[in-house]
């Protein structure tokens, strides 16, 4: 960015000033549009519930309290969904990262029997798919519908992640691996002691992408778990709540301590939306680097 300092910065013409003002204003506006909805949702969840019900909260919160978030734990369907979502996010992501790391490492080994054939057989699955319904019929046949493992098993092998890991490992100097092999380390030891520690950045990148995808999953819950409401993911549950108020009323009554008068459907909808959003908002600034690296890696395919 030094070019700017040497160039346009030193002598600021009137045109530059106008340009900067207009440019910055446009970006401020767009950024505002991106974050205001979440601010609006948030102030409605922490304001006085009767004012929220009367549509009185528009720009700033009134009568701040956090009871709505506490009350959510009594909405039984919701607590179920959040447990399922956390479980699949943690387990699904961890296993996916392990599989990707291992598969990525193995595919860098030229000695493997028919390596390029197997590698291509895995990678080519990125470019075609049988379609939603055959996939569903397959899952049905495997007994993975209405079954928690239906969330985990299909997401373990992600060819794209395997490519990313493979490309990354290939950029690690092979002398490290060779010297370890000469010292008598097995492939497994090389993997755990050398490859994994050195590939942490790429593994972190695929982990954050995997975690976000798991957290936001709607389709598989919708299609596979149709008969098991106890396995609905958070997004699925939120969608149901957003569409119908009657479900919500029942769920609210099922929680004993919540008085239906204090909570209304609007507040509950907004609060659950915020609960779905907050983890990502909290994690995102710390992980932004990995997210951005991820999209850049997309350009380097192997």
């Amino acid at each position, binding site marked *: 960015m030094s070019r700017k300092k040497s*160039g346009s910065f030193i002598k600021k013409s009137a045109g530059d000033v106008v340009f900067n003002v207009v440019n910055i204003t446009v970006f401020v506006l767009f950024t505002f549009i991106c974050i205001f909805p979440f601010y609006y949702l948030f102030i409605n969840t922490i304001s006085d519930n009767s004012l929220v019900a009367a549509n009185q909260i528009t720009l700033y919160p009134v009568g701040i309290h956090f009871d709505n978030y506490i009350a959510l734990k009594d909405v039984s369907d919701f607590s179920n969904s959040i447990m399922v979502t956390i479980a699949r996010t943690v387990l699904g992501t961890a296993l996916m990262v392990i599989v990707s790391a291992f598969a990525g490492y193995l595919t860098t080994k030229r000695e493997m029997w028919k390596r390029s054939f197997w590698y291509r057989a895995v990678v080519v699955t990125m470019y075609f798919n049988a379609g939603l319904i055959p996939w569903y019929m397959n899952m049905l046949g495997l007994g993975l519908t209405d079954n928690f493992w239906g969330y985990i098993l299909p997401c373990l092998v992600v060819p794209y992640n395997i490519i990313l890991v493979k490309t990354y490992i290939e950029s690690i100097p092979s002398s490290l691996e060779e010297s370890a092999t000469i010292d008598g380390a097995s492939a497994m030891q090389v993997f755990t002691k050398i490859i994994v520690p050195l590939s942490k950045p790429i593994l972190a990148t695929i982990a954050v992408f995997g975690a976000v995808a798991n957290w936001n999953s709607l389709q598989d819950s919708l299609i596979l778990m149709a008969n098991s409401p106890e396995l609905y993911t958070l997004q699925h549950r939120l969608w149901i709540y957003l569409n119908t108020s009657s479900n919500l009323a029942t769920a609210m009554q099922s929680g004993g301590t919540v008085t239906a008068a204090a909570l209304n459907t609007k507040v509950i909808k907004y609060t659950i939306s915020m609960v779905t959003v907050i983890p990502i908002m909290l994690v995102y600034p710390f992980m932004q680097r990995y997210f951005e690296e991820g999209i850049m890696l997309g*350009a380097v395919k192997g």
Partner: protein
Amino acid sequence: MSAKTASAPIEKAARPKGRFVLNVQRAAIVLACAATFYPGLNPARISSAISTNVSLLVSCFSFDSLVANFQRVVNQGTVPGSIFTVLQVMSIICIVGVGLCVAGACMSLGNNRMRHDALKFPVIGSLLMVVSLVGMFLLANTIASLGVSSVPGYISGGYVYYVFLTVVTLLTTLVLVIQDKRRTEPLEDKPEMKEKYKLFLMFTPVLALTFVFAYLPLWGWRYAFFDYKAGGTLSADNFVGLKWFTILFQNDTTRADVIRVLTNTLAMSGLGIITSWIPMIFAVFLTQVPSKRFRRVVQTFTTVPNFLGWVVVYAVALAIFSSDGFINSFLNNYLGISSDVNYLMNGDNMWLKMLLWGLWKGVGWSAIIYISAISGIDPSLYEAAEMDGAGRWAKIWHVTIPCLLPTFFVLLLLSIANILTNGLDQYLVFSNAANSSSIEVLDLYVYNLGIGSGQIPMSTAIGMFKSVVSVALLFGANAASKKLRGESII
């Protein structure tokens, strides 16, 4: 690579005998192993009352799933529960047998010594399978002789499948044992396996998962040729050939539907393609902002929506545009205009609205790739342009944009290849009674038809059509890229 080709003929010369029998044995074992996960091929389904969702593996550890469909009959004692306990034990024996065979098959990739040592595994394994299958047969007979109508005795297709594989494994193993006895050359001192086979064995779980979840669904294309109803079976009776494809093109209502859906799909993808320069311009102008901190903040906040699911975007839409949302609340409270319009129930301009939501969610994120491309541009290009008296706009137009075009071009080709794939989530969550006809894209149509109305064959046929066209488009885009840029995109 050259070493590999050189060693291949030597290897072939070293072990010419017994490879065929060995490969047959391996294939049988792989098939037996795969079927333990597949409920449709469960040999322990000795009564048609046993759930079709129970695989052999599940039969091993879940008594409850075995008897789930007739719990009451078992509780009453009409059918003794002990039958199913024994069945569970038989399943365990069968699985252990399969497991031993698998171990043997893996070890058979080793040297002669290892293969010799490994022979005992398929011997014991296949004998265990024989024992368990005989046991299951007797249990099926016992159940049949009880004559309880709700729990009939039954020999499933899976049972026949396993009997076949067990016989094959047993026979091939016997041949291999005989071959091993007749062996003349001495065995190696230590059982060893070549590195290449070890690596391959380590990779097999990945291959298995890929096969099961990416290749096996292709087998589901057969539903497009049958008159299948949910819960039914496929047989020669309901084979209908190309009926569904004919209907697709000849039935007026279906054809009108397909044309409407394709119009929506192409319109929305087309709008996306037409506006695909927006992230690039976003990046160009963002990098013109002098303050680094400002750029950072904008980038952070504008990328966040990309990481929220479409349901959350829908929640945002409700919060802003529904009758009790922000816009109405703002009009009422600050401008004194009484209003309670639900903007989401308006089906006009759906294509444009979906485009705007897509942009709101994705622009900041898509811009990142251009932002890093811009920071990778050689500063000397700008310096040279300045020497020539180029101003801000000239530098953008003559340096920045041309440097970004290759990236833009690749992304454009990929989006053309994906023209039929809009994704399901966005259109599903935003669809309602007022907009359903103009929001239904191909993915949503297939979902509504297959999952919503249970028309499995028809939706499979449409999905097949889409898959084939998509692959063709991808190859087309790739060929275009090769021709124009000399580089492939896949």
